């Protein structure tokens, strides 16, 4: 059995993966959203209200939370259809901010004191795993379907897609709503694992982080979001572990020149206090955008893998 720490890491990685997929769904149609933090908040608060104030069982509350977030997503997505690019980015950012302010001034959910005593769900890891598998299957199916192709075509040239008979409005709305629903699920899982949240829990930086998961992982394949979220969540933990391994070396092996210098340097370097870690994180983002602007995984790189039998168009 996994210890609680490992579980916790896996759960947060899992929630980040789900959040990354919530960004990926609208992104597949070319919509870039910073609203995913807001949708996570909607799902989290909706499901927590249902378990705490109405005593619903967790799975039911989680599902309803997802649906509520999805509905909010469609409501937000509808006006968002009119705009794109930077405008959409700002609109969704504004949405996330407004959700924060509402949560802050809504005393029913604790206001600034935060939402407390949310019931702890001991099976979060299982739920997270199930949802991730379901999402990967879902997006794999979408990818190999006509709908997936239609979404890609909207991403690449919206006008041309529309003129070719692709129902751009409905598909974009659907993608936005599905994304919001997935974000709602991620929020619900978070709420019942952390058992506490307040207006600052789902903030703009979280939205930006979710965006970077997908961009770093690669937004053109459905494996990208999972990869990006995993790499960026586990990287700091991994660096910590590296340092522990280093410390396992007996002193006698390292305590002479020049090995001690190397050891001291590595030891100091791997002391990843947060500021330093984030500096490295920022540098990684910049370098990534210069060397691999399409992310770690692209369709081409998938095509080159020997074991992927799938070829686009051979559905």
């Amino acid at each position, binding site marked *: 059995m996994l210890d609680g720490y490992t579980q916790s890491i896996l759960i947060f990685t899992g929630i980040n993966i789900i959040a990354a997929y919530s960004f990926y769904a609208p992104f597949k149609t070319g919509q870039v959203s910073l609203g995913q933090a807001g949708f996570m908040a909607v799902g989290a608060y909706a499901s927590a209200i249902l378990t705490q104030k109405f005593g619903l069982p967790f799975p039911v509350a989680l599902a309803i939370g997802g649906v509520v977030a999805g509905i909010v997503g469609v409501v937000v997505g509808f006006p968002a259809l009119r705009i794109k690019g930077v405008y959409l980015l700002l609109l969704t950012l504004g949405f996330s901010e407004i959700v924060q302010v509402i949560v802050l001034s809504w005393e029913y959910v604790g206001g600034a004191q935060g939402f407390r005593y949310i019931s702890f769900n001991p099976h979060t890891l299982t739920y997270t795993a199930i949802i991730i598998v379901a999402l990967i299957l879902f997006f794999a199916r979408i990818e190999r379907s*006509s709908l997936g*192709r239609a979404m890609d*075509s909207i991403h690449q040239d919206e006008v041309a897609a529309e*003129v070719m*008979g*692709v129902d751009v*409005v409905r598909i974009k709305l659907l993608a936005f709503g599905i994304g919001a629903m997935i974000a709602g699920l991620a929020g619900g899982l978070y709420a019942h694992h952390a058992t506490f949240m307040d207006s600052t829990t789902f903030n703009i930086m979280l939205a930006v982080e979710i965006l970077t998961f997908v961009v770093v992982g690669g937004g053109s394949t459905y494996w990208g979001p999972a990869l990006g979220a995993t790499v960026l969540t586990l990287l700091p933990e991994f660096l910590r572990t590296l340092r522990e391994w280093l410390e396992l070396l007996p002193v006698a092996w390292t305590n002479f020149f020049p090995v001690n210098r190397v050891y001291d340097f590595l030891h100091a370097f791997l002391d990843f206090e947060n500021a330093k870690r984030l500096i490295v994180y920022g540098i990684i983002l910049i370098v990534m955008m210069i060397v691999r602007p399409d992310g770690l995984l692209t369709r081409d790189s998938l095509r080159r893998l020997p074991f992927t039998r799938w070829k*686009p*168009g051979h*559905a």
Partner: protein
Amino acid sequence: MLEQTANGVCLAIEGLTKRFGGFYALNDVNVEVASGHIHALIGPNGAGKTTFFNLITGVLSADAGRILFEGRLVDDARPSNRTVKGIARTFQNIRLFPHLTVLETVMIGEHCRSYPSVWKALGKAVLQRPFGEAQEERTMRANALELLEFLGLAGQRDAKASDLAYGDQRKLEMARALATKPRLLLLDEPAAGMNPHETQELDEVITRIRDRGVTIVLVEHDMRLVMDISDRVTVLNFGTKIADGNPKEIQNNPTVIEAYLGEDVQL
């Protein structure tokens, strides 16, 4: 095909007007396109030809006027809806989906025929067998391949659209448009950037498309091509219609000749 010609009007444009600021891109234009015809639309640069296409396909909305397709008003329909109704087009400056393959590109065109609603598309996408493929997909692929065959692109089915040669990209646009099973096809300068040999080929391709029962409206600068294959020609200048008639009449129309004066065009 013949009875369609006899059946009369495929597309009727009445009083079509479009302004950009104070400038009239189109001013009270009336055009009738007969079913089964190849109908050419010509005019100097800036005459409003592409605007005309954008209005018919709904990419832009008109300031005044009516568009009747097969006798029914389509003014309020969104572009995708007009495609479903049977209007398809190609673009003057090629607009392919750069990251899709040739085959996928054509299958995009078929999407609206196979999946009339988004929900059905979603349902089919999710409920298909784990590793098999839906019947629809197979049919779509077969149809797409047939179209590629028809336009001579079958050999490049797995190439990326953006990697194709220029002339082939134009053909791919046509294949994509044909995949929507249109009854009216708008071709925006299909010969632009093609060499004489390719143009020759295009001549034949367009005629064959017409022979499949598709009415064609053609915007083209290559007058040899236009005069060769068109059943009827409409001439626009500065947003107004200045002439309408068969190729012979147009070639001898003094207004048209005047409009083209200064432009190095052999009528």
